[in-house]
């Protein structure tokens, strides 16, 4: 597949922006001003970006506890994200949700669940709504290898095939659920999922290579828009940081420093950047400009968050029911 320079730079910019946002959050987390459990997606940016680059704002995504990347890649407001981490009234969820519960309905992000696997059937249901309303949209479900332990995945895929729903399952296999390796939790690589190529489009890609993700997602999205039903894309990747909170967890000893190092060397952002440089598609100056833009935007988002008002306890009963 051929990519325009514009597309390539866009993909890079989006990954870089997510990375830098994550790093900023990480670096400030120890101040305990963001009183919310964080799950960084450092090392997994290529998946969110490679998939979402194929979507428009009417398409839906369904995300999880590790959802900052999905939110930003889909076009979610950065200020509102940071404000949510600071538990502010101006946060995307008005301080009701925190890091694990992001939302931005204006770009089809209808809320993320911190129940692992919880977003799989709801994302499938959003595809059912699309289907019934005859909209030309797709619904993308991001989920991890932990979520793939849950039977609800098979219930959902089964239904999506029966109804030929425009849903794309993006399996972010980062090899861990907290400290538990996928190989200890699942009988084999693909015992159940992704085993039905006659029933849906399935593909396994390198989740650290944005163009691979992009191409597979593109095909899936086209098929879904054409009424050809669901797809399942496994993106192999790795969680380089600890499960939750800031920083590396190498000291815990459940995995080796070498293993982490190996995957750090496969960083989706850096490796892609080097390729672009090598091919002369970007210059060091352009990168610096980008970085400056991004840093400014992030500065502003943090300022916005820090200066925003906190929700008032007396309003705690608000939003229980919709009128």
């Amino acid at each position, binding site marked *: 597949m051929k990519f325009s320079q514009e597309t390539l730079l866009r993909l890079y910019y989006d990954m870089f922006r997510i990375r830098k946002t994550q790093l900023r959050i990480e670096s400030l987390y120890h101040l305990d001003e963001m009183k919310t459990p964080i799950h960084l997606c450092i090392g997994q940016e290529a998946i969110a970006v490679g998939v979402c680059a194929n979507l428009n704002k009417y398409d*839906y995504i*369904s995300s999880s506890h590790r959802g900052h990347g999905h939110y930003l890649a889909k076009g979610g407001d950065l200020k509102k994200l940071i404000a949510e981490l600071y538990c502010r009234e101006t*946060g*995307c*969820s*008005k*301080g*009701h*949700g925190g890091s694990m*519960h992001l*939302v*931005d*309905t204006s770009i089809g992000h*209808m*809320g993320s*669940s911190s*129940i692992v696997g*919880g977003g*799989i*059937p*709801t*994302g*499938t*249901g*959003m*595809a*059912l*709504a*699309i289907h*019934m*309303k005859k909209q030309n949209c797709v*619904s993308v479900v991001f989920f991890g290898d932990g979520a793939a332990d849950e*039977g*609800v995945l098979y*219930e*959902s895929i*089964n*239904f999506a095939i*029966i109804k030929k729903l425009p849903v794309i399952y993006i399996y972010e296999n980062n090899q861990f659920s907290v400290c538990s390796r996928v190989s200890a939790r699942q009988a084999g690589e693909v015992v159940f999922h992704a085993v039905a190529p006659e029933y849906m489009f399935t593909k396994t890609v390198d989740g650290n290579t944005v163009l691979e993700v992009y191409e597979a997602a593109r095909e899936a999205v086209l098929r879904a828009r054409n009424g050809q039903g669901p797809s399942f894309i496994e993106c192999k990747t790795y969680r380089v940081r600890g499960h939750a909170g800031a920083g590396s967890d190498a000291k815990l000893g459940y995995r080796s420093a070498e293993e982490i190092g190996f995957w750090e060397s496969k960083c989706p952002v850096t490796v892609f950047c080097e390729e672009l440089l090598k091919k002369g598609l970007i210059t060091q100056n352009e990168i610096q400009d980008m970085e400056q833009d991004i840093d400014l935007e992030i500065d502003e988002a943090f300022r916005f968050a820090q200066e925003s008002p906190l929700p008032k306890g007396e309003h705690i009963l*608000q*939003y*229980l*029911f*919709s*009128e």
Partner: protein
Amino acid sequence: MPWSKIKPELNEPDFNNVTGKDKRIIPYADAIREALDQALSLDANVFVMGQGVDDPSGMFGATLNLHEKYGKKRVFDTPLAENGLTGIAVGAAIGGMRPVYFHNRPDFLLLAMDQIVNHASKWHYMFGGAVNVPLVIWACIGRGWGSAAQHSQALQGLFMHIPGLKLVMPATCYDAKGLMLSSIADNNPVIILEHRYNFRHKGFVPKEPYRIPIGKGIIRKPGEDITIIAASYMVSEAYNAALELSKDGIDAEVIDLRTLRPLDEELILTSVKKTGRVVVADTGWKTGGITAEISALIAEKGFASLRAPILRVACPDVPTPAGYTLEEAFYAGILEIVTAVRKLVKCKERADAKKITLK
């Protein structure tokens, strides 16, 4: 098998006192079916799903042949997969549809608690009001013919505990239709718990669509001496108990809660203020059930009017046994209500209600 087929043979107690030639009497199942029919025809976003909604028995008749009228896209059978399908219904609601998901039995909702409680009930609040989940989940409490422990649980006690859910329990044909239409029109997740024994009834149901406000109860029989609070099928038992008691000169007020959440506190407290005596009756288990909440509410906010202990009539705290001799001992009804009322009304003579103890 009487277990799965109940003929609508009895007229429901005459709660409404409607007379005249416009008094159309139809079976309970038809009342629900008419509500669905009207909702499907009035709003293209409404759809009906569930195991067997399109089968020859049509969910005890409540969905009968609707798939023929509206097509299998809008009225469809589902795989069992209750948690997955509930999540799919939640997602469809988030995506702007208005699903009505039918289950034979509340027992099967236990497979879907993650999606009902962790997701549907929280989605609006958790995102600061950004999204809403207009979803109706319907299930019919089983009773009799050895339905046994896994097919006859009356789980309103569980759902009443969950903020973000509305909980509706109709007692009459009129309400079965009007509350279904309100539930479908509501922008929040609503659980409708039906009772199998309501399907024995026929009653007055106007033809045109109408809604009954969610969150409001109704007095089925006014009275001065004691308040009997009930919902769903237990309202019939309470009403008949009240008629029985009136023979002894005991004038009981019967409250039909209609919805358990939001609960009509005002109606309850106003009645208790008048009567000072309360029996709360339910089709579910006693401990931690809906009778507990209603009693606690009164003990908290209506204490000043209380002249006697608050008694609860409910099922004993065991799983439903299969055998009919055990079932008979399991289910509470008119007899238990009458007995409870008689115990309390004895308190009438005493000057200082506080001193009274019960055996």
